[in-house]
């Protein structure tokens, strides 16, 4: 996927500064894209409010004045950016509540789901990847490899429904397992969310293992007397870790997208549902705020992962 960038000799701190600068530029571009995209394509943000009878034309005019929607688009854009720098994401058109507050209310449940989903990704991805990579050319290995391919290809909506159905069948056959299917348990939604990325992670690990199990440093380790089995696999796996970590950082942001679907299938509240509902209501400030959050999570985790990757691989660390 994304190969770790070569480290300049100037030391970790300046690398970090450069990465952070790049992330901020990316963030700014994403904000700009969503701001102009929504405003230019959708027209009057208050049209929905007006046609729904939630405001009279006169009140809409007042609201427009108050929210500054009457100003030229560039002025509004400048004000939005200034607001962002002060941590102000604007106000919901419908409830007039601060967007930051609305998002914060729903964030907990989504973060919980995303972290659990990431845990599932690592768990399932590691198992599939290790089995496929170390038991190559056995039925078990190619089975794991095929499962990884399947997991990557299928949309979350599909695996989600499948899991829900399976849970119902299990619950009916063995009611003792029913607590696991409770919707306030994270298990099933996290499983549905995690599986999609697990396949890709498995492939990375599988590839890394295949390459490295025959590599000189692993052979050397064997000669040094490192036991076969897990210790040796761990040795062989380490070079694949930077790639796996930078992949997982990409996935962290994609998981936010996946939560939209997972929250629908398992009827959980959260940012995904907030997004879909805000889209259906035409509440632009909320939509924009959510896009910003997603982009920020993506870029920041990316920076963090780059730094982490630099320390995970001894070869890279020595260079830095």
């Amino acid at each position, binding site marked *: 996927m994304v190969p770790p960038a070569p480290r300049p000799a100037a030391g970790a701190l300046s690398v970090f500064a450069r990465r952070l600068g790049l992330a901020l530029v990316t963030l700014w571009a994403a904000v700009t894209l969503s701001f102009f995209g929504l405003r230019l394509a959708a027209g009057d943000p208050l049209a*929905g409010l007006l046609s729904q*009878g939630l405001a009279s034309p006169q009140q809409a005019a007042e609201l427009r004045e108050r929210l500054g929607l009457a100003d030229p688009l560039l002025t509004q854009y400048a004000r939005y950016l200034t607001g962002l720098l002060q941590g102000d994401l604007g106000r919901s058109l*419908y*409830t*007039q509540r601060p967007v930051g507050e609305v998002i914060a209310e729903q964030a907990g449940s989504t973060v919980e789901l995303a972290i659990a989903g990431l845990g599932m990704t690592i768990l399932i991805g590691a198992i599939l990847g290790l089995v496929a990579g170390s038991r190559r050319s056995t039925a078990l290995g190619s089975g794991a490899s095929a499962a990884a391919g399947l997991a990557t290809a299928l949309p979350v909506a599909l695996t989600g429904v499948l899991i829900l159905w399976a849970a119902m069948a299990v619950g009916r056959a063995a009611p003792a397992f029913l607590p696991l*299917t*409770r919707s*306030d*348990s994270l298990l099933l939604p996290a499983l549905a969310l995690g599986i999609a990325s697990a396949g890709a992670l498995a492939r990375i690990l599988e590839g890394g293992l295949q390459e490295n199990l025959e590599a000189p440093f692993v052979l050397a380790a064997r000669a040094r007397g490192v036991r076969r089995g897990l210790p040796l696999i761990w040795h062989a796996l380490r070079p694949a870790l930077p790639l796996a970590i930078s992949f997982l950082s990409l996935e962290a942001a994609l998981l936010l997208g996946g939560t939209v679907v997972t929250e629908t299938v398992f009827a959980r509240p959260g940012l995904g549902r907030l997004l879909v509902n805000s889209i259906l209501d035409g509440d632009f400030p909320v939509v924009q705020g959510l896009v910003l959050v997603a982009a920020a999570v993506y870029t920041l985790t990316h920076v963090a992962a780059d730094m982490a990757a630099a320390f995970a691989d001894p070869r890279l660390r020595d260079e830095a």
Partner: protein
Amino acid sequence: MISGLRGWLALSFAALMAGCSRTPNDVTTLTYGLTLAPTGIDPHINASAELGIPLDSVYDTLVVQDPESGKILPGLAERWEISPDGRTYTFFLRRDVRFHDGTMFAADDVVANLDYVVNPDHHSQKAVFLLGPFERAEVVDLYTVAIHLTQPFAPLLDSFSQVYLGMASPEALDAWGPAEYQFHQVGTGPYRFVEYVAEDRLILEKNSDYAWPPPTARRAQPFFDRIVFRFFEDPATRAIALENGDVDVLGEVPRHEAERLDASDGFTLTPVAIPGQPTQFLFNTTLPPTDDLRVRQALLAATDRGAIVNTVFGPMSPVAEGPLSSGLWSDPEAPVFAPFDPGEAAQLLETAGWTLGPNGRRSRDGTALKISIVTPGWGSHPEVAQLLESAWEALGAEVAVELAPGFGLLREAQTRGEYNLIGINFFGTDPDLLRPMYASDGLYNWTGYLDPSLDSMLAQAAALPLGSEERRALYLEVGRLLRSEALVLPIRDYTNLVVASDRVTGLAFAHSGWFPLLRDLQLAP
């Protein structure tokens, strides 16, 4: 390193399992399901029936309705007088009532509440209409308040029994203002408002000071320390939520699942009739081809309403026979509403000039017969709309069904005006409910039908005394007119399929149907 990896896995498993903790024998907390996420829950401002499910127990009303008979009984007002001209209502209030914030309830609070409702800046979507020809409210003395109307308005007592005109603490209204008050509601009811997070939860706690139950109450003190309302907007996951024990009581359970749960151990299904307008679709009389009465009549005749109700709603929902539910009002002399008769339907279309082409499609002067249906996403309207599509395509029409998932999008689609039929219905216990929908200046006149004589009948009926024979006769006449003009396609009298865990006892609903009497509800261990 390996133990680190193992430790990590163990940790992540522990984190996943942590969600599954709830003590099963807790009887002090009830979890109650809501099925729609309203855009706002300020009862003075918003119109949703969903908001009343929790808030009916947060507020007290001046009068209450007997759940069975609908008779008006004392609430916060011990008694009341209506002036002979029907234009002044005087309420004599209880003197022992306290708001949840500790302030005493008195006549000026009623005035402050009504001023808040009629303030045009607050855009009340329902409460202000319940007040009808309201002129002003006046403090007569500390515990006496007079309501002045510009003309007689019989449904006023019914209105004052509804949560939309419940009494809120004016201090809280002032302190928070119309945007924030919904998150900080303060009433006088058996449960106090604790917290509301949109689309996630609403929490009530027992009001231990509650000592002014209305005569309809079966328990003096509320049973639960805490009631947690959670949202189950997706019909597909409601039965699962009940079976998982995520919720103790949940309404609007889809028909097949409701029947299955009722037959299984541990659950009881309570079908609750909701008075008001039935599940229905309104015809747009301003857009071709439904601007033609014969086309509307043909579509009615081509609809097998019994079969639709049987497929979508099952035997617990009665087929609707008019623009109001039968519990509210029925016309014994009226002929059967639009009997299913495809032959008659085809005949009507032929006379209207829509002839059948060789491809099985009807057209007139080269224009195809196209019917566009806009359906709301709730209340099984989409399923009904798709069955209408099937029936009318068999008749030779081209039918398109557009889904509007929320009320906002429904209004938007209505404003665009490109619909032949649109699904919308309101609930209530007085036939005056017809006025906003069928009067020429009605806020929800989505049929586009304008008729001064209908307007005057509706206005006249609203002014006649409740329960009078004249009033009844006038509404029957209105009903016949709506029928003969084929303005509405009624489907079924609204029935809420409420499923509750068998641990729940005392489940009963207010006369209006939607609102549970939470005060009387109990949970067995």
